[in-house]
């Protein structure tokens, strides 16, 4: 079972790679849209990436309320717990 910190590290790595971001900018408090410039189209790519990594069916609904990297960690944590 992954801890939230492990999930955060994983998310950091994939965001940094996918969006060519400086990992230092990817903190729990960072807002995906305003701070990291990840828009709704990127969110689709991001979900596709998560689907491939976790091998789970992920519905966009589960991520509707995600605003920050921290929210994303929580949402993924909930999913892998389920």
């Amino acid at each position, binding site marked *: 079972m992954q801890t939230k910190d492990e999930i955060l590290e994983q998310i950091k790595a994939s965001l940094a*790679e*996918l969006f060519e971001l400086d990992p230092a900018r990817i903190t729990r408090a960072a807002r995906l849209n305003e701070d990291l410039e990840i828009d*709704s*189209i990127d969110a*689709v790519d991001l979900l596709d990436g998560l689907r491939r990594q976790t091998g789970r069916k992920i519905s*966009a609904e589960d991520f509707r309320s995600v605003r920050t990297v921290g929210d994303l960690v929580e949402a993924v944590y909930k999913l892998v717990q389920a």
Partner: protein
Amino acid sequence: MEKRQTYLWRIFVTGACFTLFGLGGLILGVLVFPATLLLPGGPERRRARMRGLVQRALRLFVWVMSGVRVISYEFHGSERLGRPGQLIIANHPTLVDVVLIVAFTPAPCCVVKAAMFRNPFTRRVVRAAGYISNSPTDEMIHGAAAALRSGDSLVMFPEGTRTRPGQPMQFARGAANIAVQAADVLTPVYVRCEPLLLPKFEPWYRVPPRRPHYTLEVGEDIDLSAYRGVPSPRASRLLNARLLEHFTARLGASGGYNGNRGN
């Protein structure tokens, strides 16, 4: 300037064309589509048939609009539209662009405004034809990519909405994203309309003082090889910037129309 009488006539006929469009949508959706359900064939066959019907209906509509002199048009290179897996992207100065492009593309799939799925005149038709709603979601991206992969051609307006008159064009990244992941061929269509008919923020009855003339030109296919194998967020940003440059170089910053409404 034409005589006042001719101008009033054009307002009347433009209104009549709107009515005809709505009626056509109703007839296709309420009468023709249910009737085609009696023909043999599964859901895919049915959808293809509906797309063919929509294309022919719009062709007829274009013929009527030019017949009653609401518009005139020329369309260059339309024989290169409708190839399998072809993503067709066009700038969007006016309401009629999609009508002209779909009318001249063999049975394409189409990304249309989400409101068309709620509008009582159009909703049955866009559903039956399996068109895709333009909200920037999972379903839109996946639906469009699946259509291209299955060999459909797909019409999209990267601006997402009509060009704001006098403002520079802006491309949302959805079309570029779909192109890099799923298109076999990417083909631009440049749309010009002079003077501008039915732009954004204008009520329909403010028809321009002269009859609008549309020039549609199918451009050379855009090479996608440089974007393959690049992670999608980066590839789609690069391609999107390139597409905007490309259309701007061709049409000027404000798209299919520069200057005033011909007043």
